[in-house]
């Protein structure tokens, strides 16, 4: 399987990449890790005339902390996230999520920015980003803007990113010490996308839920923020009944597409189960 013909560009700076994006417009696609785009090009679902490889732009790499905010270059790979001591210390949810993505070879190439900007509801980082309250730095030829993850994903393969923009950085407010977290993902086998998955962050104050965020992967046209489920938990104690009620509310917003992973009813039930598991694990980790 060989992609349609295209011209290849490997800019070394963000301004050069933006210039190429402006020059070639609709004909151009940005290449990050290439493990979604290249397979789509091989299947001829995508046929860009110009491929702009972001892999040679050094400033798109790296993980650092800056005044309580974790700043991750968009071209940082899943494998780099997994081995990051800073993330292990400050944001282990991201590592837990990255470890569940595809397989080792894919994780050497796949990038956090590519995973997010692709807009695929089956990708894992969107739910992690919603649970963490992240935002994204988008650069265009006329300037830059910061867009919150909540609201960024507007449809399948559709985000608030405009043509001509490049996602350059992911910004995550470092979770307060003691924040509980979990990414619970059901998949049929290594390398498959989630049948359903739930990302949770949880702040407790004694026995009372102070703050909770729940986001669901691959059970709708986009990643879903389970706001009613969150609201049902906030300010209350957490027990079997409240966890079951939160899962029920999360299931009401699911609208999955039936495929080889299961029918809509099964996937919705699994989204509820993943929500329960993620909440329970997050509770044991919160202190």
């Amino acid at each position, binding site marked *: 399987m060989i992609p349609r013909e295209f011209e*290849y560009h490997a800019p070394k700076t963000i301004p050069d990449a933006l210039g190429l994006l402006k020059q070639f417009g609709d004909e151009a696609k940005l290449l990050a890790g290439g493990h979604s785009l290249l397979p789509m090009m091989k299947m001829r679902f995508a046929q860009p005339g110009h491929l702009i490889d972001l892999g040679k732009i050094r400033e798109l790499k790296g993980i650092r902390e800056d005044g309580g905010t974790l700043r991750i270059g968009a071209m940082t790979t899943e494998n780099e996230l997994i081995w990051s001591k800073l993330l292990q210390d400050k944001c282990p949810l991201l590592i837990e999520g990255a470890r569940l993505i595809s397989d080792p*070879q894919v994780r050497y190439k796949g990038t956090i920015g590519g995973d997010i900007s692709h807009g695929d509801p089956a990708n894992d980082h969107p739910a992690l980003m919603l649970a963490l309250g992240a935002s994204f730095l988008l650069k265009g030829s006329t300037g830059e803007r910061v867009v919150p993850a909540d609201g960024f994903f507007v449809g399948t393969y559709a985000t608030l990113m405009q043509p001509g923009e490049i996602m350059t950085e992911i910004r995550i407010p470092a979770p307060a010490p003691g924040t509980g977290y979990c990414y619970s993902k059901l998949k049929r086998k290594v390398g498959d996308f989630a049948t359903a998955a739930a990302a949770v962050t949880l702040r407790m104050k004694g026995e009372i839920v102070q703050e909770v965020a729940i986001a669901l992967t691959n059970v709708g046209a986009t990643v879903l923020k389970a706001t009613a489920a969150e609201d049902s938990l906030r300010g209350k104690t957490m027990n079997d009944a409240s966890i079951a009620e939160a899962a029920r509310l999360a299931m009401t917003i699911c609208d999955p597409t039936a495929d080889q992973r299961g029918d809509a009813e099964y996937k919705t039930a699994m989204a509820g189960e993943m929500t329960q598991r993620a909440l329970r694990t997050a509770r044991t980790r919160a202190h």
Partner: protein
Amino acid sequence: MAKKQAVSFKLNGKPVDVLVEPRELLIHSLREKLQHTGPHIGCETSHCGACTVDLDGMSVKSCTVLTVQCEAAEVLTIEGFEQGGALHALQEGFTQEHGLQCGYCTPGMITRAYRLLKENPSPSEEEIRYWMAGNLCRCTGYQNIVKAVQYAAQKLSPART
């Protein structure tokens, strides 16, 4: 037709040049232009890992990498493992532990295991299974592949007397 590009990289330590269309995949350059047929084409969809090569210190599936992305890279394939007539510890391990039957997945398995042991010289069985999960084998049931990697880890260990 898109203009061909000259791409230079190191293959098993030796400089090579290929002239490719941008759409050419690394696996095709290796097999068809550079006569390195160790990396195999299994699924062509980045699932099976038979085409795994080591690219700048990463295990990658060469069916999902463009050759033009490899300018100035260092590529290692199974052809680069044997040195001066002596098998690499991993090759020896796969032989001794019967880590293959048909052998189709073996070049990818060994190349992946090489990077795994560089990153984690003494992995547990669970770690081997987790970090080898991108390579499929339809013969062995993986038991002997795990043993082969353990054999090599032991042999390569500096603590070994």
